[in-house]
């Protein structure tokens, strides 16, 4: 791989899910700043990736009857994986995944409360495809992937799935519900240690009356749950926090009439969104997600990105431009210093090994064994990332997915490698270029060569190329080095 491609490949591993050959062609000729521009300034209107689902030449999906992502969670998972493989707006899908982990909402609880099809609907329906215009949580996050963080918080606080997931729908004046009030501070904004238990109780009261109502004709597809501010269930008394809620330093949300009470929650969200601890909390999380998981937190980076966040008024597009153009991001010692999440690993393997004739449905069970089921984070804090992805069973699941994919792509791999495969050295070099990894340990490279020379003399026959190409793709994608992105 050419040197310039090496940098673009880094950018696409981080701001996307690795590079398809055509993505290298698209981004390869661009300067770094133009490539970042292209990633950050995507036009949602040009992202017609869903139109290619089921089209030959793209990765497959598996239907069980009609393919219905807005009402079937398995289909919703397939659609999202399809988007990750084929999108022309990779940063959009990557940020959606980031937000999904940040506002981690699990399907099972929603489905348990509202039913399976409704569970999928409030997580994954696109407004344009829902009979009543319901927009699922992931679509909201996807539409606002690089939006204003304050707006994202408001949309999450009024999101149907979130109101079920963290029980806001039952938050009433007489019995405030603490679940959302706690997590909006602990996990969504300022972070643990920056609020008190008393703040949790006060936050619950701020959001009292932020409930759900069911509207639309009963028994029709127009019937739906939607957010309602219910003044009768709002606690109107003043609420005082241990931190400043308003720019003037005031810690108290003053008493209002019940009719105006929704403004309290909006004020509180404003206060949280613009809180310096929120800026640092997000900056640190972005550092780990986009720059590196190795070493200590980079305080310089955090302060600078937090500054951009605050100066821009919580504008995530400005923040992400800063992140992706930062010297920390482009420091070559930061390349391959993140542990790939299971979906990153799977999608990158598809892009680098091949997808023709493979269905993303076949990746769902392996992803579960690797510890990541989309729309089903383990709890509201999201997935346990970094080294905690690498329990031995989860690593074995990665190796076995690599095997299944290499097996599926066997003849294509052999055909692609025919010229390079005249010698075992040529074959190894071909795959090391096609599936770039963190610098291979010298023993890893030596073992791969030993493997190519095992089981008989090199003939370059079709049978040998089929065995050794698929074997190499399996071994490289299953190697420790490949797990770093």
């Amino acid at each position, binding site marked *: 791989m050419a040197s310039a491609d090496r940098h673009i490949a880094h950018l696409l591993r981080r701001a996307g899910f690795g590079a398809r050959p055509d993505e290298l062609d698209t981004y390869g000729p661009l300067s770094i700043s133009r490539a970042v521009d292209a990633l950050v300034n995507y036009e949602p209107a040009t992202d017609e990736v869903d139109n290619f689902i089921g089209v030959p030449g793209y990765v497959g999906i598996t239907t069980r009857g009609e393919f219905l992502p807005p009402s079937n969670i398995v289909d919703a998972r397939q659609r999202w994986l399809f988007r990750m493989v084929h999108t022309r707006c990779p940063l959009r899908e990557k940020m959606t995944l980031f937000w999904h982990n940040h506002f981690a909402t699990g399907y099972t609880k929603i489905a348990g409360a509202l039913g399976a099809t409704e569970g999928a609907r409030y997580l994954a329906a696109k407004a344009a495809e829902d009979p009543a215009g319901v927009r699922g949580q992931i679509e909201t996050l996807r539409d606002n992937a690089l939006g204003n963080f304050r707006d994202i918080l408001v949309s999450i606080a009024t999101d149907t799935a979130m109101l079920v997931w963290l029980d806001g729908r*039952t938050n009433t004046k007489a*019995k405030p*519900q603490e679940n959302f009030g706690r997590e909006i501070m602990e996990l969504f904004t300022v972070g643990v240690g920056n609020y008190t238990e008393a703040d949790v109780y006060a936050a619950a009261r701020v959001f009292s009356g932020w409930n759900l109502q069911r509207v639309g004709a009963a028994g029709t597809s127009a019937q739906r749950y939607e957010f309602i501010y219910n003044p009768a269930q709002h606690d109107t008394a003043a609420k005082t926090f241990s931190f400043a809620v308003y720019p003037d330093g005031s810690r108290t949300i003053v008493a209002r009439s019940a009719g105006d009470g929704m403004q309290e929650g909006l004020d509180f969200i404003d206060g949280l969104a613009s809180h310096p601890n929120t800026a640092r909390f997000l900056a640190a999380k972005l550092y780990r997600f986009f720059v590196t998981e190795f070493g200590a937190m980079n305080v310089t980076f955090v302060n600078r990105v937090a500054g951009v966040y605050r100066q821009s008024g919580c504008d995530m597009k400005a923040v992400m431009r800063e992140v992706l153009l930062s010297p920390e991001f482009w420091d070559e010692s930061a390349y391959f210093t993140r*542990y790939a999440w299971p979906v990153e690993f799977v999608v990158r393997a598809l892009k680098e090994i091949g997808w023709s004739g493979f269905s993303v449905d076949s990746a769902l069970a392996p992803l579960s064994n690797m510890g990541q089921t989309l729309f089903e984070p383990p*709890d509201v804090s999201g997935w346990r990332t970094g080294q905690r992805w690498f329990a031995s069973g989860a690593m*074995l699941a990665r*190796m*076995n997915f690599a095997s*299944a994919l290499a097996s599926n792509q066997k003849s294509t791999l052999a055909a692609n490698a025919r010229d390079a495969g005249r010698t075992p050295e040529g074959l190894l070099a071909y795959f090391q270029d096609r599936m770039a990894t963190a610098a291979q340990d010298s023993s890893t490279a030596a073992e791969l060569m030993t493997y190519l020379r095992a089981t008989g003399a090199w003939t370059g026959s079709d049978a040998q190329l089929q065995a050794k190409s698929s074997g190499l793709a399996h071994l490289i994608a*299953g190697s420790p080095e490949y797990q770093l992105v």
Partner: protein
Amino acid sequence: MNRRQFVKGGVAAFTVTFAAPEFLSDLARAQGARTRNLVVLYLAGGNDSLSMLAPYNDPFYYSRRPSLASPAGQVLPVGTDSSKVALGLHPRLTGLKQVFDQGRLAFVQRAGYADQSRSHFTGSDIWSTADTNSAQGLGWVGRYLDGFPLPVDALLGWNTTASLPRALQAGHVEVPAIASPSGYAFSSPNSGAEAAAERATSARIASHTPVDRPELAFVCGSASAALATIDRVATVAAYAGTLTGSQNYPTNGFGQALKAVAGAMAKGIGAKVFYVTTGGFDTHSAQGVNATGGAYYNLMGTLNDGLLAFYSDLRNQGLLDDTLVMSFSEFGRRISENGSQGTDHGAASVMMVMGGKVNGGLYGTAPKLNTDPGNPTLENSAGDVGYETDFRSVYAQVADNWLGTDSVRLLGGDFRKSGLSFI
């Protein structure tokens, strides 16, 4: 009943009886060296222990939980504790009641710590590290495993969950995560000699430890742990157990995880520690304590049926005396129910200890649920259960009296507590 049904029923009735046929235990012994083991059970989400072990004569239990309290006539009474509070198990815990009556189940009431965290994540980190100040270090079980002399066996511990819990994070011992023994195998796009060559290559790549790249070495260690253990785990995948029919292990994840643990024990795998979890305890709304099919009712069903099957199987295998199960949860829940017929995050909770050598019974004292702000058994203006026994005192007894290690060194302090004598 035809003869075939009779025989099937007869076998089931025979094999689940507590009077274990001796040949089974002999078989188990013959299959491998016996080893004392600890099963750490995590009830994820914050268990509402007031619904699990209810002070059913406390009028405040009913006034503060109008929709959640179990009626006194429905709980399974287990006697009174040293403070004269009558306690009853959740009505669904009929199997655990049997184990309690046999003296093999202990409850440690009001276990917790000062200023208990109400955060799931900080809370579970604290319980997992046994460190209330800085809970980002190694797990307390991991530190125990680190104390074994090198080289350690690759199956020194067995984690039945998909990801590595903090309790098992160790300095140099890799605990394999084996959620399902049958899926724990090496696959290859090829067969025969080619497949064997891939597996050998994989193992050699993984076994190399790049000393100057600890982040990469970590992944190598994980792959190595997998490859070093898959053949032995395959023997467990074939484990049938001694139970059949309705007495068998539940098909849910918890039941199957316990079956794998029993299989590992019966096959003499040699693991010293097993880690099992069952979740769904974060019952903020529609907690459903009493109605059949209610959320908490089902949680108790999962817990009861899994643990009873495990207990019965181990008893039949003659392995009960080698086994200690200890449960924990990150916090208990608020005493008063909220407006959603649920309970919010609270403080102290109940720990369970079960095993053949356990001195069963009720340890510690139940909270008095009256709302007097000065109530010494409560905290947070009488909103939450106050802790009486530091959870590390329970760990200390397990460490000293079961694992045979020095609890002071393991826990970084002397947490031994007199009167706590469940093992």
